[in-house]
């Protein structure tokens, strides 16, 4: 376990910016090691968040990813404005800052011999919130999967629906699930990968209804927020509440898979699809 130092002394002897502090156990890990370990803490196995490009690189064979629907960007159906100003500006700034058009990236790509359709949410984009552009991109990806009879893999990471788009955003839950019902009818596999965090309207739509639900260890998965629940029931919640492990024990997650094994697991799982 050479990646993280054992003594404070040796740590302080090195320049600050080469260290990554694990958000969970606070251990210091060399940034190189942290990256090589796929942002997973070598000490406590905390799975730190990946952005959509990192996730696609993790799961899809290099050079095979073809992105869909980059022309779909946020819309502002409500002309929404809050205390900090117009949503339109905030969204525009996010798009240009992150260089991605919405909170999800969709496309097709290969894992070995298998070509599949994948949608990957990015929590950096307004908390991975589900908005009209997000829902539309996911719907189009699912329809692509149906057209080409490919499996659909959804990687969720979201705080829920984007309130700046009001009910239009809420309705993306219905839209994406309607597309999934078509996928279901077409007999095509739907794998849902739940990553930290998968909550609110995303958990209550496409994320929990995979043919197979896979989660990374420790992932926060839940409908209502912890604080809201504690206020409602006026008691403290168990520590493991709403973790992937809790969800597995309660019958909602099929398998918890370490990040380093995720691609192999997914590849093997999809090999069970029988060509009809």
């Amino acid at each position, binding site marked *: 376990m050479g990646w993280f130092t054992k003594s404070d002394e040796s740590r302080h002897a090195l320049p600050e910016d080469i260290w990554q502090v694990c958000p969970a156990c606070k251990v210091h890990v060399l940034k190189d090691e942290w990256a090589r370990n796929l942002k997973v803490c070598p000490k406590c196995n905390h799975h730190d968040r990946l952005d959509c490009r990192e996730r696609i690189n993790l799961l899809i064979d290099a050079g095979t990813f073809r992105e869909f629907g980059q022309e779909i960007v946020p819309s502002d*159906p409500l002309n929404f404005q809050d*205390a900090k100003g117009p949503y339109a500006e905030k969204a525009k700034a996010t798009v240009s800052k992150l260089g991605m058009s919405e909170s999800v990236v969709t496309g097709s790509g290969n894992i070995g011999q298998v070509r599949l359709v994948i949608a990957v949410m990015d929590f950096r984009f307004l908390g991975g919130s589900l908005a009209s552009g997000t829902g539309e991109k996911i719907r189009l990806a699912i329809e692509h999967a149906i057209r080409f009879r490919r499996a659909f893999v959804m990687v969720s990471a979201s705080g829920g629906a984007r309130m700046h788009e009001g009910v*239009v955003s809420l309705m993306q839950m219905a*839209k994406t699930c309607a597309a999934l*019902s078509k996928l279901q009818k077409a007999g095509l596999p739907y794998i849902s990968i739940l990553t930290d965090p998968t909550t609110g309207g995303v958990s209550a739509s496409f994320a929990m209804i995979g043919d197979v639900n896979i989660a990374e260890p420790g992932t926060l998965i839940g*409908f209502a927020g912890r604080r809201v629940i504690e206020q409602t029931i006026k008691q403290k919640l168990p520590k493991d509440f709403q973790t992937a492990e809790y969800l597995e024990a309660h*019958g909602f997650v099929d398998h918890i898979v370490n990040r380093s094994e995720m691609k192999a697991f997914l590849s093997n799982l999809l090999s069970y699809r029988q060509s009809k």
Partner: protein
Amino acid sequence: MAFEFESDLENIRETIAVLEQKSMKGDAAASARIAELRRKLATETARVYSSLTPWDRVQVARHPGRPTIDRYAHGMCDDFVEIHGDRVYGDDPAMLCGFARIAKTKFMLIGHRKGDNTEENIKYNFGMANPEGYRKAMRAMHLAEKWGLPVVTMIDTAGAFPGMEAEARGQAEAIGRNLMEMAALETPILSIVTGEGGSGGALGIAVGDRILMLENAIFSVISPEGCASILWRDGTKAPEAAAALKLTSHDLLGLKIIDGIIPEPIGGAHSDPDGMVVAVRQAILSHLQAICSVSKSRMLDARYKKYASIGRFVQERI
């Protein structure tokens, strides 16, 4: 219960009450004045209710005197047979399901259940369903599908119950599954937001071929209070949030999210519950007739297109 925006009306009502006492003692002038004030009250009520702010409507939508689903079920239906249970865990009293008949029109009625008093509200968990409520609703819909009955859902909830047990038993899964299965349900679905249409807990039974709203009902991705405390960092900005969220029936008809508005009696549904029930009864009959007249495959196509088209603002990009 009186609202802030009703203070003028409340003053008139109080004056009428005082005059009525005098009138009972034989004061003829008082009687005349009462008649005049009643006319004024009607005019003023109409004026006030025609210019409600979104936040006012939130109050009206939540008014405890609004008809509950029990009132609709028994007031507008000539027969109602409740069915219980999700067949896996329990029977959620916060979700009412049953066979219903209006004249010769038969359907499955499903909806959130608020109470008429505190005791009932506690029993019905204030209309906030647990996963077993959503699963019971789905079972009722599949039963309707099998028996060839259309489905009418009535939405009136602050949201799905945010409880520990609800999470443990899969609140998210239950709602998500409903969204997927409703999209493919092979029987017509008419959804009516009668009061509060609160977030995923509302949507969980609202994937209709048509969605109607009562005039003063609201339908929102989040409560105005919740939105205000997150985006304004100040819960008292709920009125601003209510306006920004475009959660009224007129806003949502404009956004083409809903398909129609059922007008409320002047003064709101709570001021004339029986009148409201009659209006909903009529709306159900006419809309069911329309949606039941198309073929199954066209209905499913149209339902898919309806939801697929929400949020495609290609021409209005930021």
